[in-house]
């Protein structure tokens, strides 16, 4: 048995190490975002003349703010659809009986593993022909396709963990499978839903290749594309300052999202403990 004091100390050391590991590069990002002009050529750990110029310039940039809006909309819709479609499919795979389950699982997994670079151009051509090039739909549909496999897997493994007796009890009480799914299984799988949701959201938010291939006007750009379009004053200059500022700005809503959903994770856990 490890003595409680020692255990506590170890825990705090671990926590400190984790914080340093996670935050130092992020600190560097903030550091660079507060530097302008020639300071960027130096490697000072603290900006010699900190300024918020980079931040104000990205917000003055209409393209960036509209890209933020686009990203939020696309991410939200894709995540919602991924959770809905994904939970349906995961329930079918985890609970219901039918043939070819393994094959479907294999196909589902394989969809997400094909190198995007090889299919970017064909999707571009197809989308142009259909007419959804440079639209929200044009991005949501492929994102959904690539996000579903992970969502389905995570949700299926969560559904599997939930004791069958609970659903069976509901079925005995006269509920249909679907009602059992909605009222019994989903609430208990809350941590799984949150996890799948967060992972999907982060994937969509970060995705660059398809976004840059399937959009061509600032009104449709997502955040990664807009950041790629940040410019210095010439072709070769890499505007580290504004890129860093944009990155810091983007991180904040995501962090807020996590803080908000944290409570849900805790609630789901307590609910499970009570019922189980």
């Amino acid at each position, binding site marked *: 048995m490890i003595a409680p004091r020692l255990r506590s100390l170890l825990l705090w050391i671990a926590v400190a190490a984790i914080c340093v590991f996670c935050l130092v590069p992020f600190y560097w990002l903030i550091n660079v975002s507060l530097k302008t002009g*020639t300071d960027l050529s130096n490697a000072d750990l603290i900006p010699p003349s900190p300024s918020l110029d980079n931040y104000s310039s990205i917000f003055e940039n209409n393209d960036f703010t509209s890209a933020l809006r686009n990203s939020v909309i696309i991410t939200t819709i894709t995540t919602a659809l991924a959770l809905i479609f994904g939970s349906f499919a995961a329930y079918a795979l985890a609970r219901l009986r039918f043939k070819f389950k393994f094959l479907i699982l294999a196909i589902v997994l394989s969809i997400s593993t094909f190198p995007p670079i090889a299919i970017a151009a064909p999707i571009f051509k197809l989308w*142009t022909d259909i007419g959804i090039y440079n639209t929200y739909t044009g991005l949501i549909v492929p994102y959904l396709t690539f996000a579903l496999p992970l969502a389905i897997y995570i949700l299926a493994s969560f559904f599997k963990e939930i004791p069958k007796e609970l659903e069976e009890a509901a079925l005995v009480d006269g509920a249909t499978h679907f009602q059992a799914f909605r009222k019994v299984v989903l609430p208990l799988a809350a941590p799984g839903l949150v996890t799948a949701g967060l992972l999907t959201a982060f994937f969509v938010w970060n995705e660059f290749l398809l976004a840059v*291939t399937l959009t061509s006007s600032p009104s449709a750009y997502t955040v990664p*594309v807009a950041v790629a379009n940040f410019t210095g004053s*010439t072709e*070769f*200059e890499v505007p580290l300052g504004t890129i860093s500022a944009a990155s810091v700005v983007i991180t904040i809503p995501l962090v807020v999202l996590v803080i908000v959903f944290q409570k849900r994770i805790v609630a789901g856990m307590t609910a499970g403990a009570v019922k189980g």
Partner: protein
Amino acid sequence: MNVLRLAAILIVAALFAVAGCGDDDDDGGGSGASDSQAVTESRAQGDVTWCIGKDTTGAFTTVIDNFNKANPDANVELLELPESADDQRRLQIQRLRAESAQCDVLGVDVIWTAEYAAQNWLLDVSDAIERQADAFIPSTLETAKYEDKYWAFPFNTNAGFIYWRTGQDGGPKPASWEQMYQQAGDASGFIYQGARYEGLTVNFLELLYSAGGTVVDEGGSEATADSEEVRNVLTFMRDGIDSGDVPKAVTTYMEEESRRAFEGGRATYMRNWPYAYALGKDSQIADSFDVTTFPPYEGNPGAGVLGGYNLAISAFSENPEGSLAFIEFAVEPGQQEIQATEASLPAVVSEVYDMPSVKKALPFATDLRDAVEQAQPRPVSPVYPQISEAIYTNVYAALQGDKSPDQAAQDMNADIQDALETF
């Protein structure tokens, strides 16, 4: 219907559809495929979309506004592509392969022009060029030429320079490459773009061209890289690193890293493009550096390598005449002056360098024109990316000491020959 069956049918149908029409853009019978088309007339009317990399300073928008005002029947719009050259090229090629009419005028890097032309993706503008060939700096026209025809108009150009630190921390103005390396060794070193990418090809060719060497023969069908000159240049570059004249860090440097190191006082000499000049003047070394054209190497005059962008008309454009009109406008001296003064984009029109406004914005303007005049294009070939890869991978291996200069030269030659024989 059974969902699984539906999905399976969809997949099979898709595969059939794909097999059936998979070669529609690639058979000789497609539009604009076998016969290259030319555009000779320009008519300033209709819609024109200009696809080029990010308009960093608004200078492109200014030219567009000027054109639209002067030609009310025409409407030019800017479609900005990402800043990175690789992304610009990929997105342009994607549209060209799909025969999309979205882009009329393309901002094409000088090294992509022959590639696009070889695929019949561009319209022949030889007649239009012939009409005003004298206005351009001759070397810039070379980049737009492929198989004796012109496929684009030069738009802006670029040539490298040697930057050097003056004053206390500095060194003397370099009188030759050999001397510069030596003096760098005594001071804080010479840096250039030595990472394993296109920039290394440029740096290597600058020395090779000075030495009178080539990598591909005149006809563009045979590799000539297994030569004395190539070995000497590789040995020279390698010795520079071995002796410490050149810090090993250059093997990770692209343009920005070398600029930052130079501005941070980490080097006495640097090879870089003109863009670093304005940024340097804004930095802590503002008063203690200067630029000069390439000094002689092996007794021969220094030679640069051309950079820059050309303007070409897509073969799938629905308004070639309007596109031509816009391009001819953009290369007028007045518009070139705007590019030079507002965006520091070196002009391709000779007389622009004599304008007082340009001399003010680019203090080394005359040097710049000289540098451009003596510069040579990189090998003009449809397989340029593979040639460049052959060059930079082998030069990099030589710099790292992974291959001897002899071995690197031989391998470079073999790789280039393979590239020239690609199907």
